[in-house]
């Protein structure tokens, strides 16, 4: 008897969106199947890898990843061009870490100047991220949206506590928006609903269900992403259909496994490969769970994930 492939036809789809402008625009999401299932429908666009840069030198990054950028990270424009031209990034994620009151506490005007200079220097899509300080972000990101007007950027992250001002700014200047909630599918859904109630089209939202590093809660992020994707496809739940974003680098490059010297923990093996593997395995696992876009830091991890996606897509 011939074998029949057990196909599950899903009724829903993942929202498809375009980031950036003109020749360097990038498509994200789309598709009607679970990740990489080409046998039962239309697959999503290949997950997009955005390489992360900051508005201030990354003094707080562990040596293994910081040293990769020592020659260029003194200024955001040089760093951005390096990522676009040398590392061939699909997109660039500019994190405005320096605006955090506990860090350099850079002003809104300084942040705007950085954004404008970076946008002048690059053609690939830009993702503009706040410093994850709820009050400061609502000021910085509003100004950022205006400064980046016309470039079809992604602005983030809007959280329950500050989404209103950020949504309004993204709406006014025609950007895409990252909606972030904390590791709970119901909170993710609720935030997407609140955002659409403001007249913001879900087709322009990216869901960030909160990332975790391998070994530090990855199983929670993995399952929340998988459940969001199933709700979007199997239950055709429109509020769960935005593409999913995984902010991988930030969560990976602060744990012990990416900075402990081999001399201190011989059982863990070589540090140079360990850090890269941690970021690349985390990113690979999340792309299996449904992430459509990944924000990453280490060039070698980006390279390994690209080669893996070559096989997967």
């Amino acid at each position, binding site marked *: 008897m011939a074998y029949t492939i057990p196909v599950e036809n899903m009724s829903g789809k993942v929202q498809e969106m375009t980031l950036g402008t003109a020749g360097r625009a990038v498509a994200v999401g789309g598709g009607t199947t679970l990740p990489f299932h080409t046998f039962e429908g239309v697959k999503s666009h290949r997950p997009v890898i955005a390489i992360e840069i900051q508005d201030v030198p990354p003094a707080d990054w562990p040596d293994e990843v910081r040293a990769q950028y020592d020659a260029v990270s003194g200024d955001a424009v040089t760093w951005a061009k390096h990522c676009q031209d040398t590392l061939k990034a699909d997109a660039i994620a500019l994190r405005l870490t320096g605006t955090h009151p506990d860090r350099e506490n850079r002003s809104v005007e300084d942040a705007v100047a950085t954004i404008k200079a970076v946008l002048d220097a690059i053609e690939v899509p830009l993702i503009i991220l706040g410093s994850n300080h709820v009050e400061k972000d609502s000021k910085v990101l509003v100004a950022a949206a205006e400064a980046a007007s016309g470039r079809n950027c992604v602005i983030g992250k809007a959280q329950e506590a500050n989404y209103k001002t950020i949504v309004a700014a993204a709406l006014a200047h025609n950007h895409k928006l990252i909606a972030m909630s904390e590791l709970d599918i119901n909170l993710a859904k609720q935030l997407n609903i609140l955002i659409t109630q403001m007249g913001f089209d879900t087709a322009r939202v990216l869901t960030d269900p909160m990332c975790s590093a391998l*070994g530090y809660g990855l199983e929670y992020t993995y399952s929340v992403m998988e459940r969001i994707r199933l709700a979007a496809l199997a239950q055709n739940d429109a509020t769960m259909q935005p593409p999913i974003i995984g902010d991988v680098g930030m969560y990976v490059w602060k744990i012990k496994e990416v900075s402990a010297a081999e001399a201190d923990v011989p059982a863990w093996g070589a540090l140079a490969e360990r850090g890269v593997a941690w970021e690349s395995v985390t990113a690979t696992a999340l792309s299996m769970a449904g992430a459509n876009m990944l924000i990453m830091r280490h060039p070698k991890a980006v390279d390994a994930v690209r080669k893996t996606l070559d096989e997967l897509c």
Partner: protein
Amino acid sequence: MAMSGVEIFKLLPKTNCKKCGFPTCLAFAMKLAQRQADISACPDVSEAAKATLGEASAPPIRGIKLGLGDKAAKMGEENVMFRHEKKFVNPCVIALNVADTDDVAARAKDVASSEIDRVGQKLRVDAISIEFKSGAAAQYEAAVKAAADNAPESAIILNCADAAVADAAAKAIAARKPMLYGADASNVDAMATVAKAHGLILGLKADGIEALIALVARAKAAGVEDIVLDPGAKNAREIVELNTQIRRSALKKGEKALGYPVLGNCVREDSMVEANIAAVAVAKYASIVLVSAVERWKNLALFTLRQNIYTDPQVPMQVPQKVYKIGEPSAEAPLMITTNFSLTYFIVAGEVENSKVPSRLAVMDCEGLSVLTAWAAGKFTANKIAQFVSEWEEFKEVANKELIIPGQVAILSGALEDKLPGWKITVGPREANGLPVFLKSRAA
């Protein structure tokens, strides 16, 4: 296929005799359907009914043990497609593939010394696979013996498509019960004979699922029961697709021929890419993940991923109750307390580490609940914290009798000061990400 409670009920004596321990036959039937009872508890059921039920209650994916003794790895017996539905049961085996032309003894020693302790679990490369590449039977047998000698507790896989060579190697290490891997359409009958003769697991390799089903039929006809499937994925996408199709067919369509553990060949030239392809196989249903190199950094990443994927989604991961030292704290260093939910511990410990202020972090057993949940459930109360602090030995070495409690349970500070005379209670930040600033400003 699994039977419903009502279908099972029809096969029972319907006497409601209670000898099975349940009040009625229907109640017993319902428990059987949920696999929470065994049919042998009923003394009066007919042999025919037992046989029917036995077949229906067999797990949809056969459970098979690879290796011997307490290091043996159980494979199969999975029940779900997604880990949030129910725990993935038997963590996959990571196996190192080595050619018989390579330095097998050295690679086997790598496998034997691969054990790492992570969150209280001992994790290791479970198996070594010896690939027949030399073309010389004597060299293969010597390589297999070298693997067996140098990895005395590891499972052994004979990756060999020549039945005569495999037979000789299997005989040479018969006591180790190796798995035989390499049966395809050209040699399955001879390989099945070898597997049957030595009582070994047989790994079948085919190009696609339909060809695999045909091989399973031939292996079963030859009397082989313990089978592992390799659907011949040529890239990562095929690993995802073929493994998904096999598991779906076994679980949802009751396809018996596919109800066996699956092997994923993840061997790649670039070791970093190999780690990623192995991650794909770990996430997507492989029971044996074959790699070509087991560097310690790669092992740690893959063991950790396997632990994450196979964690019970209903039981929170816990860390042991103790006072953890972060950096090299002096007797006067800050002392914080939190609960033993692993995620809570990891996040708090990570932020304390970020602060670069040497500290002590007391982790109290709250059955794996996070701070607010544990407080609400009455497990992280002033009474219980006071009891922990006054009775646990490690608090004695603390000179500075000040306890920093999570900001979310600030409400406990008054009661704690009453119950812990001589201690100063300080309320810390509400969120862990406030710790670096909090600790640095205190140190300044």
